[in-house]
């Protein structure tokens, strides 16, 4: 009698534990962002009003207008997202999705949905997560650890320039970051559609933000679904900031990095080896 009841208790206890664990992983119907809880049912209404014509009623990026838009709207059924704080191949956090839709995507038809209330945005993020089964089976990735940004120095920029050469960023982004590298013209995304690398000389917002920290995350997590890979295995976390500082000098903006770089170039420009294929002075 006692064994039976204890056995039942153990099994039911395990069952409850498993159910709860499963439920936590599978609660893709809810999001939690900055103290706001979003619900997929409410998000469906928001989606109908704002999103459906591009992203489609099935969330596969095949809305009525998708055929006339380039780049194409995101296909939510794949569970692959560009702008994340999580490593390549993992799902973004709720905040990542919330920030991406609030910020919009420059050079695309994806607007900045910032004027929508935070509740609306949290709700629609919860709804978006219902389009891919991956949200039920996998948890979001763990956001990468970003060390604090070190002081900006010319040495940091120079080291970043070395990294730009060594990591061969120039192959796509070009020697001066104009998006005209040797491999730029043939780049395709995960749907085999042509795609261009970011042109730093445009000075426009990055695909995933405007700050140095946003830039850091871009090359340390990669833009999944695009040719832009993650360099997390190749660049030490602290060295990532050096690359950020150098990349800023490629933009025609009045940044502290550009100021220091221009000052240094005035007297040291001939010390630089050009960026490019080996044998061009490297």
């Amino acid at each position: 009698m006692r064994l039976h009841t204890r056995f039942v208790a153990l099994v039911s206890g395990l069952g409850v534990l498993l159910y709860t664990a499963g439920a936590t992983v599978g609660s893709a119907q809810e999001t939690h962002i900055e103290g706001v809880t979003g619900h997929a049912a409410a998000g469906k209404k928001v989606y109908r009003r704002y999103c459906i014509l591009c992203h489609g009623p099935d969330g596969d990026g095949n809305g009525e207008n998708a055929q006339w838009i380039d780049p194409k709207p995101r296909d939510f059924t794949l569970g692959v997202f560009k702008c994340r704080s999580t490593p390549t191949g993992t799902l973004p956090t709720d905040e990542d999705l919330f920030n991406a839709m609030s910020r919009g995507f420059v050079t695309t038809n994806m607007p900045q949905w910032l004027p929508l209330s935070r509740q609306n945005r949290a709700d629609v993020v919860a709804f978006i997560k219902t389009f891919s089964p991956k949200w039920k089976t996998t948890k979001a990735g763990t956001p990468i650890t970003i060390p604090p940004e070190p002081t900006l120095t010319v040495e940091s920029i120079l080291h970043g320039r070395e990294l730009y050469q060594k990591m061969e960023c120039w192959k796509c982004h070009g020697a001066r970051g104009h998006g005209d590298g040797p491999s730029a013209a043939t780049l395709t995304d995960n749907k085999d559609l042509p795609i261009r690398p970011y042109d730093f000389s445009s000075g426009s917002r990055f695909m995933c933000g405007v700050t140095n920290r946003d830039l850091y995350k871009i090359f340390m997590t990669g833009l999944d679904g695009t040719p832009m890979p993650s360099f997390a295995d190749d660049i030490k976390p602290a060295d990532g900031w050096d690359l950020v500082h150098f990349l800023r000098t490629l933009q025609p903006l009045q940044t502290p990095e550009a100021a220091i770089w221009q000052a240094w170039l005035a007297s040291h420009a001939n010390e630089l080896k050009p960026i490019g294929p080996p044998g061009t002075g490297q």
Partner: protein
Amino acid sequence: MAKGSTRGGRSLRGSWLASGVVTCACLFGALALSGGGSKAYTAYSLAVHKTKAIPAFARKYGLPCSACHTAWPELNAFGQRFRDNGYQLMNDRDSPIWQNPSYIPVTFRMTPNLHRESATKQAVDAVPGDSTSGLVSKTITQSGFDLSGMDLWTAGTLYKNISFVLLPSSDNTGAFHFEAAFVRFDNLFSNRWVNFKVGKFELDNLISEKRFLFLSGNGGAYQSYHFLPGGDINDFGLGDNQIGAELSGHSDNSYTRYGIAVLSSTDGEVNLPTSQSYDAFFTFSHAVDAGKLGVERLGAYAYLGRRPTYYQTSDGVAIPGTGTGNKPFYRIGLAGDFFFGDFELLPFVMHASDNAFLATGTAANVALPPGARDARWNSGFVEAHYYVNPQFVVTARWETVRMSQQTDPATPNDLGNVDAYSGGIRWYPIMFSRAGLSWHTEVSAVRTRGSAFAPTDNVWTSSLFSGLDFDF
């Protein structure tokens, strides 16, 4: 009307029900059958479209109408920001060079309809055709199929951060005028707080009459935006588009907005018809994110204007543009736009004052009639929308104008007072990015104090309207 009898139980309830039904029916009937004063057939008819929604934008950016509009043409928070940015999404793809060469930034809008207008206590010949038979008070009714005016609208960007609007608008006979035409320099000094607009444009009213959800003769305008007491020579209306220049700005999400405008004192008329003076308009609003309720916005405004009271003449004929003897007027108040989920409330209050010279039509170089005072009035409305879904909205409005000081002390205090009621539904059977269609049905009624016959008469003017409001 039968009130409930005192027989208990079932029959008592039945009697109350009967009385309720009869009351509602009579009320509706009263609204429908009300007559009208002279105002019903003049400035506020639906002959001219005053509302703006532009599928050209939807086509350009691939968004549905519902992305920018709560229910077109009324803007939502996202659409407000788009407009504030100079009709730009700010994704570096706004310059016309990025558009498909076959893209046409032109929209037209029109509403064929069936409507019925009615006005009580109108002055009519006792014997039709006999002008000597004397005038009697009668209710006049008109009904039939009709057209609205048409908007032929183009707007967008001439270049990144240079936007424009050109709106030739016609009445329902096809007679055109320019309702709006301006160039706006957006985000000057890369700063969204500095935008400069020059031309003819709608004042930056928080509650826009051009983009509201009413179309009928008696409901298709805000009384507050046009009311002037009888005998007043002022021609100003807050809802009339003005010509001038405007400096405006907004926060990143357009929750905080301001506008400062300098306008010619012509109420938007062209060819310099009045005087050389200018009016000023100030507006400021702030919105907060109220969580599940939505976005709540409150604003304040002030219009300070002047109008001439006499002109230089030649052979006794006034010379346009030489108006002088300017006397002031103002309109100040508050407006709000509050959301409670799918329910939207738009309250508005105004205090207005016209100088005694304007209110009595007296030239500034002669004496006022004895005892003449500034004309002052207060007005306000509460408008409600319920969005059943992005393609179906129910609307209602109650508005009132109350004279607080008649210019002539002998005039009854309540002469000219107005009460207006409106209700309607708009159903959008299609909602995508290429064109728009709405089946619009509306009932509106206005009661004005004072007729041609007696200052204590209540004149009712009313409209029943059902039309197909479409734009492409």
